[in-house]
């Protein structure tokens, strides 16, 4: 087990070094930041001074090593546009995105698995068939359209929920949370559903097809022959076997929720990282873009590492193979 984990961790580092190189290459290849920062009326001295100040006059490998060293400490330099520490800006915005992503993920996993199991057990039922048809909407409609439809229905027509922003937030240590106020919670509902709907339907359809596959297996038949009740068969024997492949997909999708929160945040004017990133792209604010890229790749790598470990934890056959 331990060699397996060490191998995975080693591979994770390789991935991070490569994404680090990509993030770094943006500084060199995507436009000239100095041009962007100084505007039309500049002198050559200004340019040289800023270059030296930003460390852009040094050879590229030296810049890369320096960049990695700084990045490991969470230091991504100064935003070209706001002139503030990138890490500071990110820390300010991260809670909004993380809270949104966490709620969407919980929604997607809990509802997705429950509906998946339900539609698999009641395969021919009317309700199950209706859910299956309805889920096609979740898979096929683009996120921004779902967001706009929800806003139209619940904010414009019914007026129940806010259409944009986080509502009132409370400061807990360095973390701003919307979980503690009523308006904060209300503001979370629509964006979380919008963000998690695709993942929810995906997980549901995957759980259903895996579960149907598992229910056809001989050991389920044998479990019936042993006289076990349907409840024990479905939720103990079948569900655990179903989860093995589902976990991989859930892991990948969790990363996707955080990374692709951009669209949802734009639709709902959610003051999170996605919105920050969109603005950064518009202004070619490369330090922010690089930091965002690094942060997302760290999250992906960590989640997948956890999934691999969880995998071996659930499936004893992998434990032996991994030894």
């Amino acid at each position: 087990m331990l060699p397996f984990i060490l191998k995975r961790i080693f591979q994770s580092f390789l991935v991070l070094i490569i994404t680090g190189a990509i993030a770094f290459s943006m500084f060199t290849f995507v436009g000239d930041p100095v041009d962007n920062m100084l505007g039309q009326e500049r002198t050559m001295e200004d340019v040289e001074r800023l270059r030296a100040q930003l460390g852009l006059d040094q050879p590229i490998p030296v810049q890369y090593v320096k960049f990695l060293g700084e990045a490991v400490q969470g230091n991504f330099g100064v935003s070209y546009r706001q002139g503030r520490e990138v890490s500071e800006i990110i820390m300010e915005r991260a809670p909004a995105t993380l809270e949104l992503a966490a709620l969407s993920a919980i929604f997607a996993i809990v509802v997705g698995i429950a509906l998946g199991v339900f539609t698999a057990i009641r395969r021919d039922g009317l309700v199950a068939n209706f859910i299956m048809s309805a889920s096609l909407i979740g898979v096929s409609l683009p996120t921004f359209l779902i967001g706009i439809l929800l806003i139209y229905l619940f904010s414009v027509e019914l007026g129940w929920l806010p259409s944009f922003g986080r509502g009132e937030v409370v400061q807990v240590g360095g973390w701003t949370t919307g979980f503690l106020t009523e308006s904060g919670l209300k503001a979370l509902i629509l964006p979380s559903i919008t963000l998690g709907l695709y993942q929810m339907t995906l997980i549901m359809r995957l759980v259903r097809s895996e579960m149907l596959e598992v229910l056809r297996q001989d050991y389920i038949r044998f479990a019936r022959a042993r006289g076990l009740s349907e409840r024990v068969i479905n939720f103990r024997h079948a569900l655990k076997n179903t989860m093995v492949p589902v976990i991989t997909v859930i892991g990948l999708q969790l990363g996707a929720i955080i990374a692709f929160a951009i669209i949802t945040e734009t639709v709902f004017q959610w003051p999170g990282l996605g919105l920050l990133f969109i603005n950064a792209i518009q202004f070619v604010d490369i330090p922010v873009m690089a930091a965002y890229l690094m942060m997302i790749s760290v999250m992906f790598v960590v989640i997948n590492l956890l999934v691999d470990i969880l995998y071996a934890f659930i499936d004893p056959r992998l434990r032996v193979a991994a030894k």
Partner: protein
Amino acid sequence: MTEPVLSIRDLTVEIPTRHGLFKPVQNVTYDIRPGEIRGVVGESGAGKSMTGNAVIGLLDDPARIASGEIWLNGRRIDNLNVEEQRAIRGREIGMIFQDPLTSLNPLFTIGEQLVETIQLHLNVSSKEARERALALLDRVSIPDPKTRFDQYPHQFSGGMRQRVVIALALCSEPSVIVADEPTTALDVSIQAQVLDLIKELARETQVGVILVTHDMGVIADTTEQVTVMYNGQVVENGSTDQVLSAPKHEYTKSLISAVPRPQVKLHRFPQVSYGGRETMFKIEDLARNWTKSEPSKSGKLLEVEGITKKFLEKSAVLPSWRTYFTAVDEVSFDIKDGEVFGLVGESGSGKSTVARMIGTLLDVDSGRIRFDGEEVTTMAPAEIAGYRRQIQMIFQDPFSSLNPRMKVESIVAEPLLHHKILPPDQISGRVQELLDRVGLTRAAASKYPHEFSGGQRQRISIARALATQPRFLICDEPTSALDVSIQAQILNILKDLQEHLGLTMLFISHDLPVVRQMCDRVGVMKQGQLVEVQDTETLFSNPQQDYTKKLLELMPRLAQLSG
């Protein structure tokens, strides 16, 4: 005579289909007494398993009991509701399935599955359940039950898993066990052990056993009473001795005569002729535009010299820390032109690995393979393609060796296209010819594999193998997934091909009677080594090695039959 513990009276099972009611089981009647083993024999589709499923209340939708009664210990059980049936399942009727590799849940330990079942049926604490589970594991002769208790199914061999399955079926001392082909997936030696265990349990615990099988040898060895089923109906019921030595029904007679005999060598495999299903197969057609295989230069088409294959068992960073499992250890043999060379041995003995190395599906670690004097192991990729064209393989499982998404025509045409044997406009004609030759109709070409039975699929595999006009055919257990009657047809096709086309063959099987009929010479493999190579007749009449003797003794025999 003691009262029967289970009685089936006039049982009929029906399945509604688009074309009206289909009755896979019709008016079946038989009894099981305590401690008795009743064999139920017949071809697949005869309704044997369906009857067993009806008894245990596990008929798959939309099948249902149409009429008849099932009595268990004086209580009628066919008309119970779902919950009442579930209460009987496992508690009063145990079940053993065919494939021990798939009947245990891979994510739970053996102990968890045993304790779960015991606690469900008997009102005991988890400590008592654990003790009982350990006693059961001991009862079915699993060594070191305490350690095994916490292990997962994948850590057990096939035979050991089947023992665990039997232990699970015995959890609450049922009065009847339905064993559906319990040893079909096992080796001869393991099969003998498992059957002995079932016999012993029946004798000691007085449990009645329904043993569903298609293997006449198992029936002869194990059962006291036998029920012969054909097309959903019981054609004969009686004591095993009587049915096997003096069968009354024509179907039973032809079924018994179709069982390959280890004692004598016959020219052709007798087929089950009952019901007029013997497909006429004209071998002359086959020889029509096919020149005989040209003889090799040395008279030896294939020479295998000290081939070895090791598989990585435990990986490690340093090469010296890695451990290997030697699947094939220094195996050498020759196959002459037009000869059928048999390889026998238990599973895991390396037979298939040898076949795969010859077929270049696996690389050889060391040693040499020469085909018609040319070294295969050092061939350039271009030469290998030419070599592969001359050798073709037929695999064991006709269900997984054909691509389910391809039509039969494309399956058979693929080797022709790949090796560019014919211009595209002639391919469809050649495919038709090939299908004709293996006894399939023209309409077969436009169907998909799942529309065919196991035997028909194996014919498709043969047609595909013949497409390149190979000189050498590797058959890896070509009939072990098939019924006796279908097996005879397929083996006859192979035999005819071999004789008329002068094909050379490597024939792998664990079924010794079949090997005796098919092969000119036989090699016996044990744990990766070739322990004995003999002419077939010598091997069967006068085996030299102890291991060969042991294998021959383990064959279930139809002793009552004078072949």
